[in-house]
């Protein structure tokens, strides 16, 4: 049977004793988490700026407001654990170890990008970091995660796969098929809904009668809910969960509650018909994961204003360097157009049938 | 009555012609059959005759200009007839100008680029039959017609809606090979600033070395007896003032040898090989701007003196570019002799659809072993290029052996 437990919100819990001790996170580690969240915030702000001046094109989905979810869920993982996600994945890639330069260059569509400029914002891949991609079809990555978990079990390895999706993905058939198979075969997968309450412009409550945390219960997958704006709670939660799954505990489902401070994508409004301006203002002001952790660190005398500014200056320089790197990187040349459509040049027959005669696959 | 003067296909392979000279000026009276202009084709300078009566009202293609076959280059009409409908329009189907028909600017060949407005007309000309109607032919039939020199506008199609298909072209070719001499070539080429002749040579040679599977046979011939024979013959001819050359004797010997080896005197026709009884030898002649191969017809039946006269006469007119198409088409076998240039030995490229060509080197005094002694003999090298689809190695070798025998004992030619 599914076990459902709901954590209390981060800021309410803060009054009950030392938050670092309670979550088993040292203040030093907490400072690292703060630095990562700040890096992600500045990175996304830089992407926002670059998009506005046309350096980045296409769809671009920012993670601003959800940094605690990314940091808290991915930093506890091992290097050989897998992460796979949807299309709001820039900072998840960074959290898994993809270099800021490579992510920014990918957003810029440059040859030096994580996917050689062929994927863009929605398709960041890094095999060496075991970041298995941003995927653009809602829910499409969920069966893939099940397959990666299948491989882990097939080979008898002890890594885990963490699969992120937005709250809208749980209404896709593939989600249910994938979770069911993970359950019957007891695969080492953690399915995480980054529940920011809106699938694009549709509130989750409008498209589901049941609560998020119930979505995996038909398949017998234990589910939990955690406040993604409380990075300490999130970190502790995933640290423990990964250990359970790694030990053969079977798949898990997490309702990772968070909030998006920006529009669905760069071309969508922050608020309007689907959520009130006041709601966004309130959440942005009162439920910023970076502010929450900053306050805790300052309250515990682990950080002062000067220290904070130093961290901010350092991550800004990383982000600026990434933007400069991207800007100075070459666009992919024409030789890249037909490259990597196929794994190998085929010795027989024609693989490319566009008749243009430029392809090496003819 | 308005008569359009077209750039006509004046040689079998002509795609476009250069206007050398107008024999009539605008305003001159013209009768049907009058020579109106001289056109340089890919082979020769030809005369263009009027095909209607009236006044030469408008010259569209100026002297020095080039136009594809089929393009309107002038207009003949009654003195007062309204020619605005035709005078501004060329065969490329451009809209007739509504105002006074201004002639298009003269197009000297050097300035004519690939994007010349005349080019589309060149692409379309083969679609047009005698009546100006579109000829429907399968792509294969078009290519075949081009290869065989068949004029599609004269072929009845047996396919749906009268489409000319492969079998129709083959039947037309069988029925009237002679009628094909003036067919327009179907192929298309870029309008590059080289002479018409050079264009043809380039295409023919490239076509030959591409699809024709060449192989080569070389034989050494002792020419002592031929040299003696030439002296005797010239002594006999002394009174007539005529002379024969080694080459003339060679041609006679080749013709006689080919009569004994009809398998080498043949054309490749795709589905059939045509072996000829008659021997028509194409003789490569170098002219200012390339080469041309006038044909000595029925060489097997002609005496050496006659062959000598014909070759001299044909070569002379070839150099003046006055050969008529029937004088340089229809050979069954070709010979190229570069001996006079000091060439020892070379290979020649087959002139399709012929199956063979001989490359003749110069006669050189060469030490050879004879009866255990080294002696110096006048030797000559002959290299035969064979189309392997028609001639196999043994067949070619047997022919060469016969030829060698005839040259080393010329009386054998009489056998």
């Amino acid at each position, binding site marked *: 049977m599914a076990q459902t437990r709901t954590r209390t919100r981060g800021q309410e819990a803060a009054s009950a004793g030392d938050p670092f001790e309670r979550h088993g996170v040292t203040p030093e580690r907490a400072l690292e988490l703060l630095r990562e969240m700040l890096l992600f915030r500045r990175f996304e702000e830089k992407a926002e700026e670059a998009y506005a001046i046309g350096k980045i094109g296409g769809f671009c989905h920012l993670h601003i407001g959800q940094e605690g979810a990314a940091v808290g869920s991915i930093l506890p993982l091992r290097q050989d654990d*897998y992460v*796979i996600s949807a299309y709001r994945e820039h900072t998840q890639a960074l959290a898994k170890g993809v270099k800021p330069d490579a992510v920014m260059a990918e957003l810029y569509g440059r040859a030096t990008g994580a*996917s*050689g*400029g*062929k*994927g863009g914002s929605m*398709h960041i*891949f890094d*095999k060496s970091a075991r970041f*298995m*991609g941003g*995927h653009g*079809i809602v829910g*499409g990555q*969920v*069966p*893939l995660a*099940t*397959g*990666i*978990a*299948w*491989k*882990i079990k*097939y*080979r008898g390895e002890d890594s885990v796969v963490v699969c992120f999706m937005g709250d809208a993905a749980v209404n896709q*058939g*593939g989600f*249910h*098929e*994938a979770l*069911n*198979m993970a359950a*019957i075969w007891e695969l080492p997968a953690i399915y995480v809904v980054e529940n920011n309450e809106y699938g694009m412009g549709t509130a989750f409550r409008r498209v589901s009668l049941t609560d998020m945390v119930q979505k995996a219960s038909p398949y017998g997958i234990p589910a939990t809910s955690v406040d993604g704006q409380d990075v300490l709670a999130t970190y502790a939660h995933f640290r423990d969960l990964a250990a359970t799954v790694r030990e053969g505990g079977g798949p898990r489902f997490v309702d990772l509650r968070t909030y998006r401070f920006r529009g669905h994508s760069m071309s969508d409004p922050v608020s309007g018909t689907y959520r009130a301006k006041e709601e966004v203002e309130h959440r942005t002001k009162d439920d910023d994961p970076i502010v929450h952790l900053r306050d805790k660190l300052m309250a515990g005398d682990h950080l002062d204003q000067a220290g904070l500014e130093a961290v901010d200056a350092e991550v800004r320089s990383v982000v600026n360097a990434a933007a400069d790197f991207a800007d100075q990187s070459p666009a992919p040349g024409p030789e890249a157009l037909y*490259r*990597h*459509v*196929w*794994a190998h040049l*085929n*010795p*027989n*027959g*024609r*693989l*490319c*049938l566009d*008749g243009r005669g430029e392809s090496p696959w003819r | 009555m308005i008569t359009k003067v077209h750039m006509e296909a004046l040689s079998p392979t002509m795609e476009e012609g250069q206007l050398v000279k107008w024999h009539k000026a605008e305003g001159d009276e013209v009768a049907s059959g009058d020579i109106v202009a001289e056109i340089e084709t890919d082979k020769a300078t030809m005369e263009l005759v009027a095909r209607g009566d009236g006044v030469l009202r408008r010259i569209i293609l100026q002297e020095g200009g080039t136009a594809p076959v089929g393009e309107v280059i002038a207009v003949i009409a009654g003195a007062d007839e309204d020619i605005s409908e035709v005078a501004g329009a060329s065969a490329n189907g451009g809209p007739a100008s509504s105002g006074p028909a201004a002639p298009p600017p003269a197009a000297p060949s050097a300035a004519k680029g690939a994007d010349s407005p005349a080019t589309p007309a060149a692409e379309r000309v083969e679609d047009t039959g005698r009546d100006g109607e579109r000829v429907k032919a*399968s*792509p*294969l*039939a*078009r*290519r075949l017609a081009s290869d065989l020199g068949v004029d599609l506008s004269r072929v009845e199609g*047996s*396919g749906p809606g009268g489409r000319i*298909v*492969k*079998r129709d072209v083959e039947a037309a070719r069988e029925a009237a090979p002679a009628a094909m001499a003036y067919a327009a070539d179907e192929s298309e080429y870029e309008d590059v600033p080289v002479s018409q002749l050079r264009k043809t040579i380039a295409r023919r040679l490239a076509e030959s070395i591409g699809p024709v599977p060449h192989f080569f046979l070389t034989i050494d011939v002792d020419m002592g007896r031929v040299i003696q024979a030439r002296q005797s013959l010239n002594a006999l001819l002394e009174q007539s003032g005529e002379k024969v050359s080694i080459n003339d004797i060679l041609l006679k010997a080749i013709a006689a040898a080919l009569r004994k080896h009809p398998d080498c005197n043949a054309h490749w026709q795709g589905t059939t090989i045509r072996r000829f009884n008659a021997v028509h030898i194409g003789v490569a002649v170098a002219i200012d701007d390339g080469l041309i191969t006038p044909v000595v017809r029925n060489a097997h039946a002609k005496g050496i003196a006659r062959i000598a006269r014909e070759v001299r006469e044909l070569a002379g007119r070839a150099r003046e570019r006055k050969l008529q198409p029937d004088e340089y088409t229809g050979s069954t076998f070709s010979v190229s002799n570069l001996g006079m240039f000091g060439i020892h030995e070379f290979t020649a490229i087959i002139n399709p659809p012929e199956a063979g060509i001989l490359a003749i080197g110069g006669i050189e005094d060469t030490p050879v072993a004879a009866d255990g002694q080294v002696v110096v003999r006048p030797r000559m090298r002959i290299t035969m290029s064979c189309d392997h689809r028609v001639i196999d190695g043994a067949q070619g070798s047997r022919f060469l052996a016969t030829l060698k025998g005839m040259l080393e004992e010329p009386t054998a030619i009489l056998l």
Partner: protein
Amino acid sequence: MAMMTYRDALNAALREEMERDPDVFLMGEEVAEYDGAYKVSKGLLDAFGDKRVVDSPISELGFAGLGVGAAMAGLRPVIEFMTFNFAFLAIDQVINSASKMMYMSDGQFPIPIVFRGPTGAALQLSAQHSVSCETYYVHSPGCKVVTPATPADAKGLLKAAIRDDDPVAFMEGELLYNFRGEVPEDDDYVIPLGVADLKREGSDVSIVTHGKMVHIAMQAAAKLEKDGIQADVLDLRSIRPLDVDAILASVRKTNRMVYVEEGWSFVGVGAQVAHIVQEEAFDHLDAPVLRVTQADVPMPYAKSLEALAKPTAERVVDACNKVLYR
């Protein structure tokens, strides 16, 4: 050589490749305990165990995607669809994930996966179980499509497909499973993808085809022979990669082509092949290319209508006569 059915040839290929490479596993509906809906996987569960021969839930999208994920992570899955007609549910994973992953990731993630199962019509299965699905897959760069027609080809091509590093849609036929033929028993009998097979040599007309229709084409060629017409029957064997050279060689020889395919004509395989022929052998055509395809309707159930909808040897003969201007 051994005489065996197409079904057993596929079974042999699976067995040999699973023995050869421990990363190969078979997943699909009814493939394990039931021995396969069409018995292609008969005995494999006993031989390889339930880790490698896996009964899936009826979740085509889910297990197709699972296979792609496993391939991303380094395994070589063989995913069986009971029929490709059910794989419409899964095609998002084949097109959007399997076929694009290599490119989207700039070469980081090849997807060595085989999706296999029958395609096309059997007998009176009506509209939803009779679709020839090749074109849906072959349309997409990144996905290979293989259509064996004989037991020997089934074995040699499946082995090649499993060893291939790209996604392969491997399309069989319900009516082919019982077809018998000589099959090499060699463990390394691998037919490279992209090599067409001249199943019959002629000089007058080229019948080009793939998959099950090879047999219709052979019947048509036999009928034509009685009229003195010699037909080339060229079996493409794989549609991507496509053996263009073999197609052009045949057309250059005969100057006319009829394409026979089981699927619908509109934007069909024959349309693509005809395009290539007109582009690259235009001057060799003595007649327009004709196609014999399924009628442009969903497959009807009634025997009378089904017969009208499917390509037949008679229709192929008629088309050949047309391009021969007879």
